[in-house]
């Protein structure tokens, strides 16, 4: 046997190529596509159904109370005979608004404050962090109760109350990451390359903490819905006439004990499925911004 014969072809031809990563690429793209599709459907439903629907989601039909899913009412009816599908879509609209607004505001503020504190360091950092400590020591629900009470209950106060209490933890996470990143040699390199603090924060530190911030943001969406329904549970959240998913789930509890599953299941799915879809997209995005995963997935 000669060693010149096989040459290039030996490797490429006769023996098969063995891969190292598992073959997750295809399932991954499927997952991303499904997530994207779900998010799209959600957005469309939320935007289009209410204006198009001829039905009144508040329309009470006592004769049709608690009907299981049927063609007339695909999701069944609630205990006042209202169509659950319609209410779920309306609820999703409200809840998603609360969740997204809260998540967005909280993440932006939290990331900005945390990154600024961590990047500046010294006195500025200490002051900012003590303010954060101070604010975060007021129990969330308490602050939520007051904020909601000060204004009329509605989407904005609820979202604000969630955002106002939740940017703090994002800020802490981001700052801690920044603190640890700050002493990395590549930051030294940037400093010596003439980068200002701001530049270092925006160009080197912020991208590194984005995965954490993104996770915080995604988690905030369902959490905000949670908060909203917790406030409703205490009688302080969204007014009960506004269908929100939290309200729906919350008022369906006794039906569940009484053996009716649909008033719980569908609103529950309406919370979970979009959340998972958003999480799926965010996960894909996180992989995209993680340089290693990115190249491994050949993005």
């Amino acid at each position, binding site marked *: 046997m000669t060693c010149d014969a096989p040459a290039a072809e030996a490797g490429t031809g006769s023996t098969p190529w063995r891969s190292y990563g598992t073959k997750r690429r295809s399932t991954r793209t499927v997952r991303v596509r499904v997530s994207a599709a779900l998010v799209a459907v959600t957005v469309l439903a939320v935007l289009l159904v209410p204006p198009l629907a001829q039905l009144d989601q508040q329309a009470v039909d006592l004769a049709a109370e608690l009907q299981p899913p049927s063609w007339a009412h695909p999701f069944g009816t609630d205990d006042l005979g209202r169509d659950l599908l319609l209410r779920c879509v309306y609820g999703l609209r409200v809840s998603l608004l609360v969740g997204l607004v809260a998540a967005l505001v909280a993440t932006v503020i939290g990331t900005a404050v945390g990154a600024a504190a961590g990047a500046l360091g010294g006195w500025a950092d200490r002051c900012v962090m003590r303010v954060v400590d101070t604010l975060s020591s007021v129990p969330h629900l308490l602050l939520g109760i007051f904020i909601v009470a000060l204004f009329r209950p509605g989407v904005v106060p609820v979202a604000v109350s969630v955002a106002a209490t939740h940017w703090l933890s994002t800020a802490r996470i981001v700052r801690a990451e920044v603190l640890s990143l700050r002493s*990395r*040699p*590549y930051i*030294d*390199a*940037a*400093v*010596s*390359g*003439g*980068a*200002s*603090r701001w*530049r*270092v924060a925006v*160009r*080197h530190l912020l*991208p*590194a903490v984005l995965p954490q911030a993104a996770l915080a943001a995604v988690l905030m969406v369902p959490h905000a819905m949670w908060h909203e329904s917790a406030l409703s549970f205490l009688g302080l959240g969204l007014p009960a006439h506004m269908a929100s998913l939290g309200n729906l789930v919350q008022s369906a509890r006794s039906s569940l004990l009484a053996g009716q599953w649909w008033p719980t299941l569908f609103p529950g799915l309406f919370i979970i499925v979009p959340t998972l879809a958003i999480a799926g997209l965010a996960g894909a995005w996180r992989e995209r*911004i993680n*340089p*290693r995963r*990115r*190249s491994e997935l050949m993005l």
Partner: protein
Amino acid sequence: MPEQPLLELRAVTAGYDRRAPAVRNASLTVAPGEAVGLLGPSGCGKSTLARVAALLHRPDSGTLLLDGAPVRRWRHRAPRAQRTTVGVVFQQPRLSADPRLRLTDLIAEPLRATGRREDVPDRVAELAAAVGLTPDLLGRRPHEVSDGQLQRACLARALVLRPRLLICDEMTAMLDASTTAALVAAVEDYRTATGAGLLAVGHDHTLLKRWCDRTVHWDDVTSGTSGTSLEPSVPSAM
């Protein structure tokens, strides 16, 4: 009057713990256009001294003069012009490269940071050629290239702002002979073109002798006092 030194370290003591400084009482000068080699055993504090010289590490005591002016502020607080006077190639390319940046961005980053965006395409192309990076490599991220390739990018980054003083902390430690020769040639070309000074830190006696106008040994720099608490490196076996 002799020419004013570009960089002068006077009795610098620096380290990470005030009780046991890594560098004790070190003095060193680099004149404009001069190439100084700094030799010393491993762990003696050379990199620390290099960080001090690059205004990245505040010394516990002693003075640092850049162009004859004493430096009082460090890191971010140092004026940008002062910071960018000195270009540094760090010892460990893996750690000193932001894993998120492509090599092009890595090289161009100082230009962008100092607001000279328009120079980016030309300068990057020019430097990439000088240090031997192909366009293919420029599009990759640090973990997708070999250590040597990354070090080339780091050299390009150090040169991109046309520093008047270049500090190379064991720049060629992990490079093969040909690449070493190529990079040294690149540095020398740059120096002849700009008249920049050089402080080359390393262990390789032969290399530094060949490369630099003057080599100093660590013991001379710290004038007899041992620079660190470290045991002296163990003499070679047998």
